[in-house]
């Protein structure tokens, strides 16, 4: 990904030098493997810290909410869609932004790789030509095809190229069709279960949750000044690790993202205990597509379906 990194640096330097933007948001190399850090540069000198590879999985749209500066921002397909959602929802103005578009080749799943490693991962190497990822640590070294260790949301992604951008760092990548990607296979698996099995599945899914709210806070959609779980008057939900309260939090958070979620995977990536929070959100994404023909963040004009009314909106749930 050196070519991407170099190009990002080149564009960022130019933008800052020509005073087109006040800051450029991207990633710098992390202090631990598989984890790059969201970072902003305000001077040309700082630009050299920027990096791009398969470990840039946090969604940068998170960092532009309500900012007043002119911002240059690095954005993949899903990140650009979240920026579009932000523009629609009035959290940033389009003309404040200079979007450096990344034709995305997917992020690697840090949970999957950690589970594969026979010990702690000390370093990760990516071979672009071979398409492999090599993890190594004390007494082990393992190479795998990148395709096998992609984040699940990346492997089923149908919007890899930015939908909104001012300049691309490379030629667009080929998109998968929805037929090839089959993005809702996992949702269908759950849909096929009996109600009690579904209930048990989500019980098990959430059994490790420590309510740290990393999933919520890593999500660019969760920008409410006060989340419903934090409200105390009235208090909507208990604050302990009681399973009912944990499930209520996840259910309602997911629902607040309906029609806005771009399946960027930041929630899953940020979870310290590896919960696949997308089991909630992906169902809503599928419903929005099937009921309203809607995909979030494909343009900056249309408001999300749950925010608007059309006479032809489905209403067969009313009996």
């Amino acid at each position, binding site marked *: 990904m050196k070519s991407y990194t170099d190009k990002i640096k080149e564009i960022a330097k130019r933008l800052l030098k020509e005073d087109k933007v006040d800051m450029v948001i991207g990633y710098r190399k*992390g*202090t*631990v493997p598989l*984890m*790059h*850090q*969201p*970072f*902003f*540069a305000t001077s040309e*000198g*700082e630009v050299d*810290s920027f990096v791009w590879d398969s470990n840039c999985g*946090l969604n940068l749209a*998170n*960092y532009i909410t309500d900012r007043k500066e002119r911002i240059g921002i690095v954005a993949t397909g899903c990140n650009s869609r979240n920026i579009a959602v932000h523009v629609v929802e009035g959290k940033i103005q389009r003309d404040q932004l200079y979007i450096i578009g990344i034709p995305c080749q997917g992020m690697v799943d840090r*949970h999957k790789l*950690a*589970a594969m490693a026979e*010990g*702690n991962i*000390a370093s990760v190497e990516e071979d672009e030509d071979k398409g492999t990822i090599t993890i190594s*640590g*004390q007494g082990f070294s393992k190479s795998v095809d990148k395709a096998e260790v992609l984040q699940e949301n990346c492997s089923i992604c149908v919007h890899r190229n930015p939908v909104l951008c001012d300049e691309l760092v490379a030629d667009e990548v080929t998109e998968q069709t929805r037929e090839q990607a089959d993005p809702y296979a996992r949702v269908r698996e759950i849909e096929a279960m009996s109600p009690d099995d579904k209930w048990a599945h989500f019980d098990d899914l959430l059994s*490790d949750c*420590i*309510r*740290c*709210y*990393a999933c*919520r*806070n*890593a999500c660019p959609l969760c920008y409410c000044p*006060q989340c419903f779980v*934090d409200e*105390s008057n009235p208090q909507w939900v*208990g*604050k*302990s*690790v*009681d399973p009912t309260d944990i499930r209520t939090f996840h259910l309602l958070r997911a629902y607040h993202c309906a029609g806005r979620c771009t399946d960027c995977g930041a929630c899953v*990536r*940020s*979870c*310290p*205990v*590896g919960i696949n929070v997308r089991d909630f959100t992906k169902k809503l994404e599928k419903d929005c597509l099937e009921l309203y023909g809607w995909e979030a963040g494909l343009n900056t004009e249309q408001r999300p379906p749950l925010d608007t009314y059309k006479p032809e909106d489905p209403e067969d749930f009313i009996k």
Partner: protein
Amino acid sequence: MKVIKIDKNEWASGLEKLRSAYELIGPVKEKFYHAFQPLESGQQPDMDYINTRVSPKYVIYPQSELILECSLNENDEDYKIYKEPEKEYTPKAILGIRPCDADSFSLVRRNFDTEEYKDPYWLRAYEATTFVGLACDQPCPTCFCSSAGSGPYSDSNLDILLADNGDHYLARVLTEKGEKLAAAAGWSQDAGDEADQQIDQKKQEAESAIQSRVNTDKLASQSLLDLYEATDAIWEKEAFSCINCGTCTFVCPTCWCFDVQDEVSGKKGYRIRNWDSCMYPLFTLHASGHNPRGTKVDRLRQRFMHKLKYYVDKYENGIQCTGCGRCVQLCPVNIDIRRICNMLNSYDPESCTCEVTAS
């Protein structure tokens, strides 16, 4: 103090003998990661584990703990009078706890066991527990225990320290509690005169394998206000990526802050103590609506200033961190306490710079 030899063949049968007197808790592989869990009959702790995702602090200090309950039935004599729920503090043994995690309990104890106030829940659970530590021969790349006042063979808060020595453990029995447990398990084979040296030898090897360290020598002499006000040099830039989740505080073995919540269910009232996190905006929100730590920069500064400066000044006993590296590994946006510690340690108020630059 004596050193005994526990043959690995006798390990499992020893544990079975312990069950009549102790509830056993040990590292168990769950879906993907290890966690400390009560060991069911016949279940063995996985002593080949590296470390758990969430620290074992919850064994003594659960994330949510019922501390009081009351009746809300007006006809009851004790209507609305809070009482302690009945709880048994049966003897527990934590098996295979890492020395860094064990050391964290002595740090946390400074908060829960003071002259003025003794936290009954924490202390009862702590006192009922025997700590059987497993020395760490394979430190992770993120481990910096030896420069954070702990170490891979640190035994300052253990009752027994086990060192893996091939087909057997060498066990340093450090306290009376430890002796009692060893006797109950039937582990008594003398390890010989050289065992102590052997452990020291292994300790040196383990310490030299630690690649990561923090500098803490100047933290105490730094001016608190200088560090607090180093907004441009440190806090603004470091806080940028922070998303204000509670991961760092919840996986940390030494974070002790909590929040007390009342819940009502039917005709019963429950008072529950939950872990809280200084990363949350609610943590310092006043009833008036004012929040003295209103921005994430304030909150991030609080977390690190508490661990690396306020605590250092108040207790004069090093930093409030044992170097387990969990927050470094698990922070979703790679905020690294090692980097921040080195920045604070090297901060020069004259030039407003640190040796580790913020960019």
